């Protein structure tokens, strides 16, 4: 009823529309650009993955041939094996490091702010910088191994960077250094929001600190734990820069990961169809993580509303 006042009788609705045009533009243009590019780009990449495109995108239909070619390639198989190892090792270890750090910082220690800043600063640095620095530290001729040799222990060996079987662990080390602080920050927030009455009740029952953590505090953290796992897995699946800077997929193709295979197929071998198929496979891997998580979040939220 209040809107009618400003429009008034005799003023056609179209002039109101025209007057409000800048408003419509401001609302719709950014949102539509964003939404449209997401949908169109995804559909286009999916479509290309079913075409025989090589150097340039072409029409045509090859069914699942690109997918089977990617899945059968040694590159992709190694990338998947690596992802499985890297993903699980990195997620578990960064989760454990983050939780331990959070519990330690939660003991009302002096300098907590400084310590928290120290564990979080790697997140402000690019993966390229992280990868480059760790490639120096882990290089047997330059870094830790060389230092220990110079100190006199000449039989010391720490040459994972050039060891085909162990090279993937260098990525794990750098990734843990870069993002354990993130898990710590989330866990710390969780620890700080544990119900004080719950802790008091357990204290009255005579629970010691260890029992307190195991029985009372940690069980309240599992929703945060799942969130951290999902975010770290999402990061693991799309890891690219870190490997490029640290090992560049080597030695040989020992540290190949899916994102590197996509890049290699698209821009180095100019096999667009296969590259697109590999990208879609990456998306499916992500969905395998994210869809159960979304379902879980949905159930949690409904439960919270009904409780």
């Amino acid at each position, binding site marked *: 009823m209040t809107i009618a006042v*400003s429009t008034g009788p005799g003023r056609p609705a179209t002039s109101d529309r025209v007057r409000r045009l800048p*408003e419509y533009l*401001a*609302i719709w243009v*950014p*949102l*539509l*650009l*964003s*939404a449209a*590019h*997401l949908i169109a780009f*995804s559909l*286009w*990449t999916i479509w*290309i993955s079913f075409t025989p495109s090589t150097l340039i*995108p072409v029409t045509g239909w090859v069914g699942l041939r690109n997918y089977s070619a990617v899945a059968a390639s040694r590159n992709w198989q190694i990338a998947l094996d690596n992802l499985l190892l890297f993903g699980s090792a990195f997620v578990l270890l960064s989760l454990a*490091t983050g939780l331990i750090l959070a519990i330690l910082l939660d*003991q009302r*220690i002096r300098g907590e702010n400084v*310590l928290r800043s*120290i564990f*979080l*600063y*790697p*997140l*402000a*640095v*690019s993966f*390229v*910088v992280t990868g*480059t*620095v760790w*490639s*120096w*530290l882990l290089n047997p001729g330059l870094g*830790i191994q*060389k*230092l220990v*040799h*110079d100190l006199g222990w000449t039989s010391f060996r720490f040459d994972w960077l050039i060891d085909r079987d162990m090279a993937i662990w260098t990525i794990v080390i750098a990734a843990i250094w870069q993002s354990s*602080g*993130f898990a710590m*920050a*989330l866990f710390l*927030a969780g620890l700080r929001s544990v119900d004080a009455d719950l*802790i008091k009740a357990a*204290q009255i029952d005579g629970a010691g600190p260890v029992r307190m953590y195991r029985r009372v505090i940690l069980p309240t953290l599992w929703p945060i734990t799942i*969130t*951290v796992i999902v975010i770290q897995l999402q990061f693991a699946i*799309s890891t*690219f*820069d870190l490997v490029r*800077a640290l090992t560049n997929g080597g030695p040989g193709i020992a540290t190949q990961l899916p*994102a590197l295979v996509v*890049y290699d197929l698209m*821009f180095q071998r100019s096999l667009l169809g296969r590259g697109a198929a590999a*990208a879609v496979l*990456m*998306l499916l891997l992500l969905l395998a993580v994210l869809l159960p998580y979304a379902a879980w979040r949905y159930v949690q939220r409904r439960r919270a509303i009904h409780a």
Partner: protein
Amino acid sequence: MRDRTFAPSRILIYLIVSLIAAAWLAPLAVVVLNSLRSNEEIAQGSMIGWPQHLAWSNYAAAWSGFCVAETCAGIRPYMLNSALVTIPATIFSTLLGAVAGYAVSLWRFRGDSWIYGIVTLGIFLPQQMRLLPWTIVLRDTGLMNTLTGLVLIHTIQGLSFTTLFCRNYYVAIPQELIRAARIDGAGFFRIFWRIILPLSPPILVVTVIWQFTHIWNEFLYGVTFTTGQQQPVTAALIALSAAVADIPQHGVQSAAVMIAALPTLLIYLIGGKYFVRGLTAGAVK
């Protein structure tokens, strides 16, 4: 509840925390120290060591001396490229995200929750799904190998995050405030300017820090869509380590790494609180 006395268990806690903190600081310390050691000094020993004499000249060489590919202008042009991409893209994506977040949270219109849902999917969609389409778009618009092209990409892709951040902040503003302003005859822009924006500084700081850090540190688009003199500094660092693989110059390279990491590190040091808020806000999407 927990006391501050120095029982043995507390000493142990401090010991463990300090050891881990030292390990976390070690990579930074190594780069800082190496950036002050001459290439010859590093070549004689390892990369881990104390500078015998401070080689400040590494920084001069890294900034404007050494060669990447055929160009010997140091890291300066690439730093400039990164700044020319990051600053506009951060401003555009933050402003557009603030307006979009305001529109979907407080203005409400038909289809708002649908389009918002789609926009936030962009947070999860891997970059690899967008590489080929962006290639086509940049080629057809003539923006391939230009900084403008990267600004366009980061602005549009950044909208997913900026809209999410701002929307989640604005939903806490009472709807009545907007309704009252509308009854008084205020329109979309007036309400945004007079009511929303004055309430926004905290979330705008979080968003700006998040966007700046991410765009500055981005590598994949930079290396895919630009070459040579147009590359951002992340891509240039990789090119540099490939270029000097035969004759390593680790002192100069360390200085280059420090310079490249400095902008985001400084922002983290100054706005750490907001940086962490962005991290956790992004996590609870």
